[in-house]
């Protein structure tokens, strides 16, 4: 057992263990923290593979962004202290069996398969190389997906604001009133009473 092997098994244990606890814990806040561990473990795995840039992105976006967002939403929506309801036992058994079956099946067929490597010399996955290829328009440049994803992020941002916007009048009453009055008259009070959440 070399140190690197030990480190890998350690990371794997953190990831799997964190994930298992995250999906079984009855306290929602705890499950979020276990998710955090699991995600950090995955970042460690990237470090282990010498992909420092991806590891950094993983830590920043997942750990620093998404998990924090989830914790915020837990505070906004749920009494974080109380236990969550247990799943129905039939569903739990069915899901566990299905997941275990799928897992074993997949692992079996992965182990049966022989992968072939390209065997060409490796490219340094440095931030400079990544940035150059990400923004290049020739060869295998990723400028188009990059732009598309930026549009997607913009759309998601606007979508979040629209969905989470706080309207004083509940939507069904709003609809009912719109049929009664002229819609032009209604728009102004609605805008005046709105406030953004995000």
């Amino acid at each position, binding site marked *: 057992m*070399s140190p*690197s*092997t030990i480190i*890998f098994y350690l990371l*794997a244990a953190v990831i*799997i263990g964190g*994930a*298992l606890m*995250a*999906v*079984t814990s009855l306290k*929602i806040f705890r*499950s979020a923290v276990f*998710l955090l561990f*699991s*995600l950090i473990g*995955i970042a460690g*795995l*990237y470090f282990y*593979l010498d*992909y420092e840039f*991806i590891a950094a*992105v993983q830590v920043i*976006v997942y750990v620093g962004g*998404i998990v924090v*967002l*989830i914790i915020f*939403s*837990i505070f*906004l*929506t*749920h009494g974080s202290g109380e236990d*969550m309801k247990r799943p129905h036992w039939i569903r739990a058994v*069915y*899901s566990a069996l*299905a*997941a275990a079956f*799928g*897992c074993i099946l997949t692992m079996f067929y*992965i182990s049966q398969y022989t*992968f072939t*490597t*390209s065997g*060409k*010399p*490796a*490219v340094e*996955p440095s931030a400079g190389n*990544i940035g150059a*290829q*990400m923004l290049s328009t020739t060869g295998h440049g990723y400028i188009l*997906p990059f732009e598309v*994803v930026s549009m*997607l*992020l913009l759309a998601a941002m606007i*979508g*979040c604001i629209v*969905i*989470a916007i706080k309207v004083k009048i509940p939507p069904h009453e709003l609809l009912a009133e719109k049929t009664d009055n002229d819609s032009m008259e209604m728009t102004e009070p609605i805008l005046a009473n709105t406030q953004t*959440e995000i």
Partner: protein
Amino acid sequence: MNDIGLFHFLFVSCALFFIGVYGFLTRRNLITMLMSVELILNSVNINFIAFNKFLYADKLDGLFFTIFIITIAAAEASVAIAIIINLYRNHKTIDVEETDVMKF
């Protein structure tokens, strides 16, 4: 890391994936379901990185896919949380068993 190969990583990601599936099917709270989805996405990321590292080290494509998946996951999580908050506001609950008005 001589004895740690591609298969180890694939097994880890496979286990993570099915843990996520289990969580998605059993959890009754929408936020925890969202967490399960994050786990599934991360298992995919591990797959991409591992394939890139062990099979196609001369390219960076797997890495780019990972970056884009992370970006999309962030967008997806934010929209999902916005929907969950809105749902909570209208129904005072985020239990999936109780939000079943969209049927026949």
